[in-house]
C-alpha cells in the first residue's frame, strides 16, 4: 500500500522537470513510449497480439464462436470485451471479479473499437435474427507500468487485425480474415497541475490529477473519449489534447497495421 503513496517530493520533482518540457524517462511531454507489437502469439486463439508500451505488457486473445444476435441488432455480430487485471501484473491488483477500474478500461477499449466500426460487424451476421459470429476480446494484462487504456487498445486492434474466423470448423465455408475497415488509435493524456503529459508512465499516472483518453480514426475523426480521475480540464486543454491525440495517433497507426 505504501508503494501507492507517491511522495510529494517525487511529485514536485516530476512537475519541475515537466515544466521545462522534460520527463524522468527522457521523453518530451507529447511523446509516447516505444510500442512493440507481436502478432499471433497464441495458437489456441483465432487471433492474438502481445503489445508492449514501454514496460507495460499486455496479451490479447480473440476467440470466435457462433451464437444468437441481440434482438435489437439482428443483422450484426456480437462483440464482447473483457480485461483481467491479474495479480501477476502488479502488487496492487487482486484476484476476483473485475473492479470498477477494470470495467471502465474494458468498456473504453470496447467503445473505441465498436464506435470506429473497425470490424464490419454486419459481415459477421450468418443468418439474420438467428446466427451471428460472437467475437470475444480477452485482454490479459501481464506487466503494469502505466497507461493501460492505450496498451490494451493497441493490443485489441492488433489482435483483431490478425484474426482468422474459423468458419470451416463450423461448416460455414472457408476461414476468412476479419473484415477490418477502420483503424482506431487511442491516445491518453495525463494532467499534472497545469501540464499535459502524453502516455503517462506508472509514476506519472499515480500523481496525475486528471486523465483524458481520445480515440481517433485514420481521418483524424473522434470515435471515443473518456475523462477520468478527480481533477478537471479546461475546455482549451481538452482541445489541445484532441489535437495531440490526432497527431500521435497518426504515428502509432502503422505499428498496429503492419503484420
Amino acid at each position, binding site marked *: 500500500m505504501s508503494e501507492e503513496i507517491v511522495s510529494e517530493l517525487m511529485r514536485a520533482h516530476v512537475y519541475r522537470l515537466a515544466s521545462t518540457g522534460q520527463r524522468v524517462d527522457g521523453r518530451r511531454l507529447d511523446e509516447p513510449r516505444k510500442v512493440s507489437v507481436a502478432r499471433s502469439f497464441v495458437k489456441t486463439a483465432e487471433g492474438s497480439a502481445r503489445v508492449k508500451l514501454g514496460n507495460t505488457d499486455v496479451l490479447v486473445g480473440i476467440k470466435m464462436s457462433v451464437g444468437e444476435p441481440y434482438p435489437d441488432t439482428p443483422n450484426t455480430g456480437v462483440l464482447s470485451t473483457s480485461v483481467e487485471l491479474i495479480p501477476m501484473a502488479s502488487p496492487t491488483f487482486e484476484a476476483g471479479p473485475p473492479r470498477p477500474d477494470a470495467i471502465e478500461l474494458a468498456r473504453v477499449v470496447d467503445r473505441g473499437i465498436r464506435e470506429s466500426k473497425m470490424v464490419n460487424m454486419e459481415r459477421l451476421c450468418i443468418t439474420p435474427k438467428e446466427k451471428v459470429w460472437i467475437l470475444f476480446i480477452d485482454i490479459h494484462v501481464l506487466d503494469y507500468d502505466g497507461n493501460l487504456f492505450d496498451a490494451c487498445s493497441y493490443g485489441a486492434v492488433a489482435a483483431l487485425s490478425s484474426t482468422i474466423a474459423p468458419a470451416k470448423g463450423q461448416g460455414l465455408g472457408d476461414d476468412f480474415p476479419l473484415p477490418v475497415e477502420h483503424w482506431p488509435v487511442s491516445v491518453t493524456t495525463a494532467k499534472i497541475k497545469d501540464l499535459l503529459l502524453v502516455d503517462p508512465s506508472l509514476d506519472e499516472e499515480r500523481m496525475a490529477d486528471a486523465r483524458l483518453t481520445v480515440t481517433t480514426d485514420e481521418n483524424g*475523426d473522434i470515435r471515443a473519449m473518456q475523462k477520468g480521475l478527480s481533477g478537471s480540464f479546461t475546455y482549451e486543454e481538452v482541445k489541445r489534447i*484532441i489535437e495531440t491525440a490526432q497527431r500521435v495517433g497518426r504515428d502509432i497507426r502503422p505499428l498496429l497495421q503492419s503484420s
Partner: protein
Amino acid sequence: MEDIEHIEKEMKLINSDGRRLDGRSFDELRPIRIEAGVLRRADGSAYIEWGGNKVLAAVYGPREAHPRHLQDPARALVQCRYNMAPFSVSDRKRPGPDRRSVEISKVISEAFSSVVFKEQFPRTSVDIFIEVLQADAGTRCAGLTAASVALADAGVPMRDLVTSCASGKIDDVVCLDLNKDEDNFGDADCPMAIVPRTGDVVLLQMDGHLTYDEFQKAMGLSIDATKRIYEMQRDALRRRYSVTLEDILKEAPPAAAPVEPEPEQPREDDFGPEGI
C-alpha cells in the same frame, strides 16, 4: 422487433424544416423540472424530470466511511452509486449493478470529487445515490444534475454546483440533448459535466463519430445549455430554502460553514399523480 431493420434504414430523425421528431430545434433542451429536498431520511435529496427521465438523487454524509480500511486519513471519499430501477426501461433490468452502471458510478464519483471540499472531512465518506426511475436517454446527465442539488441540500461544502448536459449528432446535424430514439439511431453522443462558475470540465465521455469541428459545435451547445440548467438548479434550491441559500449561492459557499436547511421548513408529505 419485426421492423427494426426497416427502422434503421428509414428513420429520419430531423424533418425537412429542421425540427426533430419531438418538435425541438437542434439547440433546444427537453423540459426540465427540479425539486430539492424530497426525501426525509437522506441528508439531502433532489428529484428531476428531464424529458422522459425521472431520476431521484440522495446524499448521506459526510459520515464515517465503512469499511474502515477504506478511510482516507486526509480527506473524505466521494462515492456515487448510480442505479436503474428494474422497471425504468422497456425490457426489465435485473436488479443489481451491471457493467454500464459501474462505469457511470465511477465517472460521476470522479466528477464530484473535484468540487467537494474533501479535506475538511477526513476519514468520512460523502455517499451519493442516484436512482433512475424512468429512463429516456441522458440519465447520467440528469442524475448528476440532480445529485448536485442533493449535495447542496445536504449542506456538503462545494466549490460550486456541477451541471451536466449532452450533445450529439443525428442525421449529420449536431444537436443538443438527445432523447432515446435519437440516441439509439443517431451517430454520436457526448455527455459532459462542468463547473459553471469556472468552466472546468469534470466529466467528458463520447462515443460515435464526430469530426473535430463537430465536437467543438457539440461542446458549444452543451456549455451554453449548462448555463440554463444551472439556473434551474439554483431555482430549485431557492424554492426550498427561500432566502438563505440564494444569498449563499451568490457567493462561493464559505468552506467551513456547511449550508444548513432551515429546521422549521416543512417537507412535502404528499404529491400529485405526476410529482414525487
